[in-house]
C-alpha cells in the first residue's frame, strides 16, 4: 500500500513585493490561499515544486506546505502558515488588511 501523503500546497514569497503567494492550478500565483492548488499525490508534488521553483522571476523560496481540506475551504495546518496567511499579530498589516 502506498505511503499516505497529506495534502499540500506550493507557496513562496513574491520577488517584487515580498509577500506570500500560492501556486494555483494553472501554474500562476495567487495571494489567496483559497485559490491555491491542492496537491494530493507525492509524485505530482515533486513535479509541481520543480516547476514552481523555475519561475524565478516571480517567486522566491518555493516550498511545500501542509494543508487541510475542510467543507468551508482550505485551512493551514501549522501556525507558521497561518501567520503567513494573515500577517503579524501586533498590527493590522499584511494579508489580513486586504
Amino acid at each position, binding site marked *: 500500500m502506498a505511503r499516505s501523503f497529506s495534502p499540500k500546497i506550493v507557496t513562496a514569497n513574491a520577488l517584487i513585493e515580498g509577500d506570500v503567494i500560492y501556486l494555483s492550478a494553472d501554474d500562476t500565483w495567487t495571494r489567496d490561499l483559497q485559490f491555491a492548488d491542492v496537491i494530493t499525490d507525492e509524485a505530482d508534488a515533486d513535479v509541481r515544486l520543480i516547476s514552481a521553483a523555475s519561475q524565478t522571476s516571480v517567486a*522566491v523560496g518555493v516550498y511545500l506546505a501542509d494543508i487541510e481540506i475542510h467543507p468551508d475551504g482550505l485551512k493551514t495546518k501549522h501556525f507558521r502558515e497561518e501567520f503567513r496567511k494573515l500577517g503579524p499579530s501586533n498590527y493590522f498589516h499584511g*494579508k489580513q488588511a486586504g
Partner: protein
Amino acid sequence: MYKYNDFDAAFVAERNKQFRAQVERRISGALSEDEFKPLRLMNGLYLQLHAYMLRVAVPYGTLNSGQMHQLANIAQRWDKGYGHFTTRQNIQFNWPQLPDVPDILDALAEVEMHAIKTSGNTVRNVTADHLSGAAADELEDPRPYAELIRQWSTDHPEFQFLPRKFKIAVSGSAHDRAVIRAHDIGLRLVEKNGDTGFEVIVGGGLGRTPMIGKILRAFLPKADLLPYIEATISVWNLLGRRDNKYKSRIKITVHEHGIDEISKLVESRFKELRPSFNGADQSLFDHIKPAFAAPAYKQHSTELFEQNYSNDPVFRAWVDTNVTAHQNAEYGIATISLKAHGQTPGDASAEQMHLIADLAKRYGHDEIRISHEQNIVLPHVHKSDLPAVHASLKTAQLATANIGLISDIIACPGMDYCALATARSIPIAQQIATRFDELKLEHDIGELKLKISGCINACGHHHVGHIGILGLDRAGVENYQITLGGDATETAAIGQRTGPGFSADDLLPALERLIAAYLDLRSEPKETFLQTYRRLGATPFKAALYPERAVRANAA
C-alpha cells in the same frame, strides 16, 4: 558627531549604485535568486515572512536629529509608518518592496547612513554602551574606537568570507551596559598605572550555544587596538569551522581550542602584524576623535527642574526611573521608553521619531542614542529642560516610566515577522507588560530584566535576562521555556532552564507565581530579583513555577 569625509561618501554612493544595478538585474531575470541573495544581504536586505526587511545600521547607536527625521521619512514614504529598533542598535523596516530599496538606500546616504554590515559573514556594525559620552561612571567615550573599527573593518579584504558573522561591542565604563561579554569580541576601556587601554574579551555569544566571553588580554595599549583585533579575527578565520554553521562562531573555536591556545596564536600573529601598522591608523584616530567631543554644555539654573520634581509626581516617577546621572551634574540622560504597556517593544512610529528628533535638536545638543534594550536615549538634556521634554513625550505615548522594570522587555520580532522564528515574541511581551501594569506592581518589583526570543538564535537575549523566555515549536504548538538568573552586565551569567515549557496561555500565570514568590522571598524591598535568585538558588522559584511538582515531591 562623526561626519563622513569624501571617501566615506563616495564609498557609500558607489555601493548604492552597484546595488541599484544588481536589483535591476535581478528584476530583469539576469541574476538568479541564488546569485542575488548574497548581494542583497551585503546591503542589509532580508526576505522575511510577509515581506522584505531592510536592516539599517546605526553605528554605535548614535544618531542626530536629521538622521532620525530621515528614518521617519523613509517609514512614511516606503514602509508602513514605523520602524523597529533592534537589540544590535539597528533599525529595521518591515515592509519595503524590492524596487524601492535602492531609493531608500540613497535616502539614507543623504544623511550619512547605510545598511552595510548588518548581515552576512563579516564584521558587523559595532555596538557601544548607549550612554557613551554622557554616563557619569565613564572612563572614556568608547565611540571613537568604535568608529575606527568601523572604518577599518568595512570591506576589509581579508574578512569578507569569514566562517560566520562577527560582532564587536565596546564600553567605556566598568558597569557593562553593552553586553560585551556576550560578543565575539568585547572591549572595555580600563586604566592601569595611569594609562588607559582595553580589556579584550573573546568568545562570548548567545544563540544555540550561549557562552560568556573570556579575557584574552587584560590590558591592551590603545595604539595596538586594530592590529590586535586583526590578529584575533585572522586566527579565527583560519581555525574557525566552516563544516558546520552551528560550530563556526569564534566562541566555539575558543571553546574547542581553549583560551590559552587561542591566546598564544593571537599573540604570535599580533607580533607579525604589529609592525605593518605604521601609524596611519593612529592619524586616522586623531582625525576621528574630535568629532566625539562633548557638546558645549549650557549653564543655567536647575530650579525649574527641582520645582517640578517636588510638585509633579508623574514627572518625579519618570525622572527616578528613566533619567540617569550625567557627567555634568546639571544635566541628565533621558531614556525614552519604546515599551509603552501593550505596545510592540522597540517600535517607533514616524510621528514619534519626528518628535524625538525635534526634542534632540531643541533640548539635546542634537544627539540621540539607540540602546540595545530597544529604547531611545537623549544623552545630554539640561535638567531645566527635562520638564518640557517630559511634557512633550507625554503627548506621543513616549513618557512611560519603566526603564529597567519588568515591562521594559527586550523582544525579538519573533514569528510575527521573522522567517527563522519558531514562535511569537511580541504578543507575549505585550501581555506581560499589560498584566503587570494592571497589577500596579512593577515599581514595587523593581529592577528586573525580562528578555524574550522567538527562537534559539536568541536575538531577544533571553539567556542573559534575569527572566528569559524562549519561544519554541513543540509539535505544532507555540511553547515557552523559562530561564532564570541570566545577567547581561559585568557579572554576566547564562540563565538556567527551569523545566518544561509553558503554553502561551499558561505562561502569564506562571510568571505571576514566579514574581509573587520573589516578592515573598526577598530579604528587603531593595534586594532585586537577581540578588534574591543568587542568594537562594533556583529551587524556591522552580517550586513557584511548577507547584504541582513541588506537591508531588513533598508527598513522596
